[in-house]
């Protein structure tokens, strides 16, 4: 799994070069020409169908490019038998366009997930759903992301390291068997992109980020998220799942330096 994601990242480098050359032309709105190039880089020669059953909710205009709130959902009834197993989330004008890959299970029911992502400039969010047999489905949404200049206060390195990996979890009550239940997961982490200049050495500050979160409920896999640096600082995932019984919701996160952070939340019914 990790290997696969790394392979993806190397493809990303190709896409980065392309997106930068486009970005050099200053445009006022998101550029629809970016995606065809990126689609070819990530899903070479594969067909992709535009669909309505995958949905993206987001502000038309993001207040701060550092923390753009988005909600992704899949309407199973409208999908009409198409079962999405993997959901790739891109911000197509970002230097590193992939923000996360979600590996889904049936226990999630009608998939619904809120998160916060980074925008370098105006861009389209592109969600690509993949089925078990490799069919691809696309949903897109344009977001204007000008004006925000937050999230750049320099921090103390030892404080960042000490705080990294702190987890908060919550499950909304009351919980009922067989009924969609909302869980919230926050993890403290600076999510360094690897593209920031080191002011002293004039090189780049190495990437330092959460690269994976595994959610397990009652001992069974619920969702795995391959996390990329397009996910905002202090990654946040709020999602619904359908508990079959009382049990423990476990989250295990890893960072790109190999550290593991975990927490459990006991769900009572």
């Amino acid at each position, binding site marked *: 799994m990790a290997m696969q994601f790394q392979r993806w990242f190397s493809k990303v480098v190709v896409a980065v070069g392309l997106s930068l050359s486009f970005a050099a032309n*200053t445009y*006022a709105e998101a550029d629809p020409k970016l995606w065809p190039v990126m689609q070819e880089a990530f899903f070479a020669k594969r067909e992709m169908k535009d669909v309505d059953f995958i949905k993206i909710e987001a*502000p038309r205009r*993001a*207040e*701060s490019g*550092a*923390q753009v*709130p988005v*909600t992704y959902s899949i309407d199973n009834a409208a999908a009409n038998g198409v079962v999405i197993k993997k959901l790739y989330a891109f911000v197509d004008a970002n230097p590193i366009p992939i923000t996360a890959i979600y590996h889904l299970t049936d226990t999630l029911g009608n998939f619904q997930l*809120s998160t*916060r992502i980074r925008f370098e*400039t105006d861009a389209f969010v592109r969600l690509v759903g993949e089925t078990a047999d490799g069919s691809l489905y696309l949903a897109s949404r344009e977001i204007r992301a*000008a*004006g*925000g*200049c*937050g*999230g*750049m*206060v*320099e921090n103390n390195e030892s404080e960042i390291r000490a705080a990294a990996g*702190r987890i*908060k979890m*919550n499950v*909304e009550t009351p919980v009922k068997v067989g009924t969609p239940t909302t869980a*919230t997961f*926050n993890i*403290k982490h600076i999510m360094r992109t690897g593209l*920031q*200049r080191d*002011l002293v050495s004039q090189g780049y500050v190495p990437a330092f980020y959460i690269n994976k979160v595994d959610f397990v409920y009652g001992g069974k896999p619920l969702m795995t998220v391959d996390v990329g640096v397009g996910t*905002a*600082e*202090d990654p*946040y995932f*709020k999602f619904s799942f359908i508990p079959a019984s009382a049990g423990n919701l476990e989250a295990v996160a890893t960072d790109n330096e190999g550290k593991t952070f975990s927490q459990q939340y006991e769900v009572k019914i």
Partner: protein
Amino acid sequence: MRILMITMSLFSIIGCSHAEVQHSNFAVESVADGIYVHHGEHLDIDTGYQGDICNISFIVGSKGVAVIDTGGSLKVGQQLQSAIRKVTPLPVLYVINTHVHPDHIYGNAAFLPKNPSDPKPEFVGHEKLANAMDVRSEQYAKLNERFLHDDAIGSELIKPTLVVKTTLELDLGDRVLVLNAHPLAHTNTDITLIDRKTGTLFAGDLLFIARTPVVEGDIKGLIAEIIKLKSSPATQVVPGHGPVTKDWVVALSNAERYLTVLLNDVRASIKGNVSMEKTMDTAAESERNHWKLFEIANRRNVNTIYPVLEWE
């Protein structure tokens, strides 16, 4: 309205206090003996941004001039320089930046010496300013290019040559400015200064009047610094944005009230599991009618502080 009046009045009254001097649509108001303020328009940094949205001031002593913020582009900096020349032939000794935001710093380049033999002013800022400028330079350059187009050309980033760690006194000749560095508040690079001679306090963006206050650094720190400013010996205050006022304690209290309501509302949302998205629609609603640019600025403030306050 006031600007219109100034533009229509073609009197060029030099050295006369409480007069207005106008130069190429760059109006300056004299607010005390030797103190001039230009008011930018209340615009967001988005489509329509022209590099001239904050207050830009200069103070004239017997030896020379101090500039307080330079606007968002070389062009605005040059307009400021021309306005100074209409008032005095004395050299600019100090160019002070109240903090790192692009609307306040990109006119600095106008004050670099034209010839190597010309005297160079000291560029003055918070001890963290140079680093903050570096970290943001790429993003700000893109933003300037995008919104200012040709006006962005030559708007180079000029870093401080003289830093304020805690306090610093600058002598302009028969008048002393006292600069104070602040901890994390509006940004991590905030300084304020007071002209001892007239008791005019330049609050930078620790104080917004009329325009919705902006939090980027730390809302709790900003509230704390605003409260401290209330015990200043000032007679009048020049805010970072908005009109100059002698009713400055009220102005500080207004900003404090907005920020406190915002902080309490966001904390209540987090406690009650109300999402950031919903909170952006509802927080500080009672303040909406008191401020300009409320919709965008308030939403952005929530977007900035909510993810931080989640970890309280």
